[in-house]
């Protein structure tokens, strides 16, 4: 066993656990028990995350919202490992938001409770092992006291403490005594990796039984006795407003209780609460609220973006790219490289706005008590930590007086990093004086999203006589993801659009990255793997175009660029280092898996792509067939991922499958378009998810074994699919996809 040095977060944990062990048992407020029904507990709380019942059942808290990324399975596995219990004996409980407001600055009580940037596993790795080990230490100490034995001579296994003479005691038997002990003075020792029995083994989704029986509770399944249901008719014009409305018919609908106008932000203001103005209909039940909404008559004012369309935005980007942008990276001397170039390759790639479209639309329960100045929020959110402040800003209720409970969540993909729907529920609750369950319809969700930014990528590469890439110029015109954010300076708006240390920085001597600020009234936000999605498509497609133009093998070109195993600094999210060998590792894996270099029948093609996303290395290889008429079939997909130490291989595989499917749906079908300053799509008929018949029949996921600290995997599976697919399509039929989505481009190109 090895001991680790104590770091700040562990110290913080120990301080809290000491008080917990001293008798201030962390208790869930009543409402949370309603959300997560737990039989009356006789258990003993050992630290903040572990409770052990006399019958040996082990309850482990999960702090992050579960959006389908597998956090509620993987993070408790880490605690269970060090606690040394059987996974079968573990029940996972969702922890509510807990922020300690007693100090000078608010502090997470359980650690960061967000779900974004694929950081959950990395953060859990940093503290959960110690949580588990400290709880185990307390149980061992309790046994040592019971037996008057030396704790150092005792061992644990499967939820029991064992004495060398053969005696043993169950954790359930020892839990009460363990809970009464002070926390260890030095962090309890951690297991050696070779002794792991849970970490690294495949574990199924912890809530599977609740999910398949319909018992799992999502946000929309919140039925508080005092809640009225609200739906809202929002202004369909980007930054438009309510000119007038007539609610006479709406109020006649049986069950409708109130109709209130909810103001939106002024068009130029930073966004701090809700996104769009509208009329809220509040009723005793969902159907009455929907019927009431359908009976509203509203006149809208179109707002400042009435002339914006997808075509006008594309023209705007094209015009921008004719000028000079903001240079955000300028390595070497690109102009000299251009002047000396034997060959120059150029291409422009166009990506559309995309919606998150989680299957569970936005919703939120809010109860305000404006006399006692207290609030309760139950929300499917990826960003619970922001809710107390939001409630304070809208109601004056102090942050410590807002309780926030988390439900299981029907998908996130970044949409729920923005709590605009929580703000709406608060505003409606405030305006009506009622406890409110706000529900968005699918149409609401698709039209009032914070969309993945659209953009045009112009790439230019220069090569010398030896066909070595000497210069790389990426010019991107996009509507920045930093949408109406307070405190972002104009000169920093590029930051979420281009990650300057991404491939091929430092692999090519002369690299210039240039950004152009495209203006648009479409709301933007974080969409799974944010800018990696667009940049990986452009860069990895372009590499194949270079290879084709200069008669090189696309795999060999990538290998040459990556070169000898090296480590570079990586200053953006996912750093601090980028290892060329790890990217090469996943690339080689998919090349072997797909049978790169094999002779293919006519109409078949293979393509590949690799990318470094938020600390994880991923690659895809795709095999397609394209008929003479342009019908595309994805025959086979091979995916490889290196996210460091594997905690739950089954979960990683699921995320790679999910990223692949998500990538296919986005590449083939999905675009949000604008006409007359309004979003055109409204439901899954015009914003399609991938039907099962279009999912590949064969998808192999290779997970690279590694001792590196684990990184998450929620976002790594998506960026490389689209370029690998586009490269395969080119290989199959010679049509180069430069605009997403693909839709009927192949039919049209091959008919021509």
């Amino acid at each position, binding site marked *: 066993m090895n001991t680790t040095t104590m770091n700040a977060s562990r110290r913080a944990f120990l301080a809290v656990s000491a008080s917990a062990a001293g008798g201030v048992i962390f208790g869930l407020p009543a409402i949370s028990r309603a959300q997560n029904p737990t039989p009356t507990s006789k258990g003993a709380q050992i630290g903040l995350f572990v409770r052990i019942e006399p019958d040996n059942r082990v309850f482990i808290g999960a702090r992050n919202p579960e959006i389908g*990324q597998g956090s509620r399975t993987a993070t408790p596995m880490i605690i269970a490992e060090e606690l040394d219990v059987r996974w079968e004996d573990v029940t996972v409980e969702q922890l509510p938001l807990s922020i300690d407001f007693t100090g000078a600055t608010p502090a997470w009580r359980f650690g960061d409770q967000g779900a974004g940037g694929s950081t959950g596993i990395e953060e859990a790795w940093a503290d959960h092992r110690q949580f588990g080990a400290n709880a185990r230490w307390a149980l061992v100490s309790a046994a040592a006291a019971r037996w008057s034995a030396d704790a150092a001579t005792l061992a644990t296994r499967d939820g029991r403490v064992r004495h060398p003479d053969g005696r043993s005691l169950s954790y359930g038997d020892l839990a009460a005594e363990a809970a009464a002990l002070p926390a260890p003075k030095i962090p309890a020792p951690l297991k050696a990796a070779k002794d792991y029995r849970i970490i690294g083994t495949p574990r199924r989704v912890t*809530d599977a039984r609740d999910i398949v029986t319909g018992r799992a509770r999502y946000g929309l399944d919140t039925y508080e006795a005092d809640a009225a249901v609200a739906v809202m008719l929002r202004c369909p014009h980007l930054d438009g407003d309510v000119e007038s409305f007539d609610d006479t018919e709406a109020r006649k609908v049986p069950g409708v209780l109130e109709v209130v106008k909810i103001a939106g932000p002024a068009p130029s203001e930073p966004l701090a609460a809700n996104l769009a103005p509208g009329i809220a209909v509040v009723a005793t039940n969902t159907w009455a609220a929907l019927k009431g909404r359908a009976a509203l008559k509203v006149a809208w004012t179109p707002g400042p973006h009435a002339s914006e369309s997808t075509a006008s935005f594309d023209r705007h980007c094209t015009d921008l790219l004719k000028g000079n942008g903001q240079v955000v990276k300028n390595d070497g001397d690109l102009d000299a490289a251009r002047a000396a170039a034997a060959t120059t390759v150029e291409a422009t790639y166009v990506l559309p706005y995309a919606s998150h479209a989680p*299957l569970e*639309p936005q919703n939120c329960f809010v109860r305000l008590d404006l006399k006692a100045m207290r609030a309760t929020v139950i929300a499917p959110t990826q960003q619970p930590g922001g809710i107390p402040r939001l409630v304070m800003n809208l109601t004056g209720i102090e942050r410590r007086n807002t309780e926030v409970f988390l439900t299981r969540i029907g*998908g996130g993909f970044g949409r729920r990093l923005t709590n605009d729907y929580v703000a709406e529920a608060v505003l409606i609750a405030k305006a009506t004086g009622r406890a409110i369950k706000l529900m968005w319809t699918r149409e609401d969700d698709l039209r009032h999203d914070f969309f993945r930014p659209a953009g045009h990528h112009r790439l230019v590469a220069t090569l010398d006589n030896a066909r070595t890439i000497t210069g790389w110029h990426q010019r991107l015109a996009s509507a920045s993801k930093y949408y109406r954010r307070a405190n972002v300076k104009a000169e920093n708006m590029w930051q979420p659009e281009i990650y300057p240390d991404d491939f091929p920085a430092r692999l090519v001597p002369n690299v210039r990255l240039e950004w152009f600020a495209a203006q648009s009234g479409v709301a933007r936000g974080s969409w799974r793997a944010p800018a990696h999605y667009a940049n990986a498509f452009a860069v990895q497609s372009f590499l194949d175009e270079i290879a084709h133009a200069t008669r090189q093998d696309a795999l060999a070109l990538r290998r040459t660029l990556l070169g000898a195993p090296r480590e570079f600094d990586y200053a953006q999210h996912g750093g601090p280092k980028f290892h060329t060998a790890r990217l090469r590792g996943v690339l080689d894996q998919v090349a072997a898996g797909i049978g790169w270099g094999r002779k293919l029948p006519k109409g078949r093609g293979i393509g590949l792509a690799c990318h470094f996303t938020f600390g994880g290395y991923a690659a895809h290889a795709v095999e397609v067939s394209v008929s003479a008429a342009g019908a595309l079939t994805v025959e086979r997909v091979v995916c490889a991922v290196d996210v460091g130490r594997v905690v739950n291989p089954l979960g990683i595989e699921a995320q790679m499958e999910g990223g692949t499917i998500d990538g296919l749906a986005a590449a083939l079908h999905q675009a949000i378009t604008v006409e007359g300053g309004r979003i055109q799509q409204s439901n899954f008929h015009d914003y399609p*998810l991938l039907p*099962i018949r279009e999912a590949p029949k064969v998808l192999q996921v290779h997970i690279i074994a590694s001792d590196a600290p684990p990184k998450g995997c929620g976002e790594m599976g998506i960026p490389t699919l689209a370029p690998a697919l586009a490269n395969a399509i080119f290989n199959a039929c010679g049509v180069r996809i430069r605009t997403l989505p693909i839709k009927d481009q192949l039919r049209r190109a091959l008919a021509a």
Partner: protein
Amino acid sequence: MATMRLTVNGKTQTYAGDPDQPLLWYLRDTLRLTGAKYGCGAGLCGACTVHVDGKAVRACSVSMGTLAGRRVATIESLEQDGRLHAVQQAWIEEDVAQCGYCQAGQIMAVVDLLRVKPNPSDADIDALTNLCRCGTQMRVRRAVKKAAAMLRRPA
């Protein structure tokens, strides 16, 4: 409207509300059977799939007025005496769910599929129109095949 009767998960219920109300909201808001989910409200996603007289239907697109005397079964009725249905069991074994929101609807659709096609081909599975945003399609396919095998050789 006149009071009508229907059975839901084997229990007789009386309904005197708006005949236009979709079954989905009656199940969720009135009976608090929340296993059927709202995903699109337009018959497009299948998250709301339940059975009426044994056949899979989309509860968001069936009005209460059409259900007099009919038998409705929801995901909550699949488990019998603590024993999961083979489709549920296969779903757990293949670890299908990610967020899980579409899964109750998927399972109800597949129970009906296997009733009609006990030995479904890939083409039969391709005909499923339930949507999943998280990308569980590959595992759904495996689970359908596993459930079919389990039903052919009951444990």
